[in-house]
């Protein structure tokens, strides 16, 4: 079945946006900081949080509606 380019990009972006949301959830669960001394735990926590924040920002940026509304 042929899919229009518009439908394909919509589907691709939707899937990837969901992927990034899932990655953010994984990053919030698989936390290295739980298993290292306190000082390093704080450093890991910051990195993990920054990673999750990027994932969520990416998920929002890739949502088809956001992409289509972009200038």
């Amino acid at each position, binding site marked *: 079945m042929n899919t229009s*380019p518009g439908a394909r990009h919509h589907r691709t972006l939707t899937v*990837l946006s969901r992927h990034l949301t899932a*990655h953010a959830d994984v990053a919030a669960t*698989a936390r*290295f900081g739980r298993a290292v001394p306190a000082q390093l735990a704080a450093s890991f926590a910051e*990195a993990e949080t920054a990673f999750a924040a*990027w994932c969520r920002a990416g998920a929002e940026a890739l949502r088809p509606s956001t*992409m289509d509304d972009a200038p």
Partner: protein
Amino acid sequence: MPHHAFAVHPDEHLADRGLADFAGDFAPLTGPILDLAGDPAWLSACAGTWRVMAAALADDRGALLASAETDLPGTWSPEGLAYRRRVLAAAESVGRMSSRALDLVAAAEAAAIAVERARGRVIEEFLGAVAALRRASEPVTVPEGPPQPPDPERVAAVLAGPIARVRAILRALDGELEPARTLLATLTVGMREEAGRLTRR
């Protein structure tokens, strides 16, 4: 009756007990000390998860690049070109974050090695302390008299050295982990900038 290193009952001949029994008695104390050093098994498990995530991001980057080539809603239209530009920028960002996820794994794996080594040294100290404690708990023989119970202060004193050494091991571990902290700080800044770029588009 439970034994305690600092309250040796005169009727109990602790010296008759095996080292393994002794070590078993103190196991509840060693767990928290080892936890201070860290848990390499958890680090390895997390590293596996982050590796999978990095690979998934690399796949996502590929999907975005393909999308930029094939999913244009009108290849040369202004909308199509704008879509291509946005998708390619997102693909670059996803690719960089895949690399950073692997950098995070590398930091965790370096930490796991240092933590594992420190735990081994803590366990050695613990076993040495148990052996010394056992020796110090032996009844004191005196000429022409029955053996006397050990001096509780002497028993307690044998722990001072191992406790100081365990503290030194944990301090040294903090020093060994400094490069990982530096790497993580750099990664954090990079990832925050990456998120900023995505939201500014």
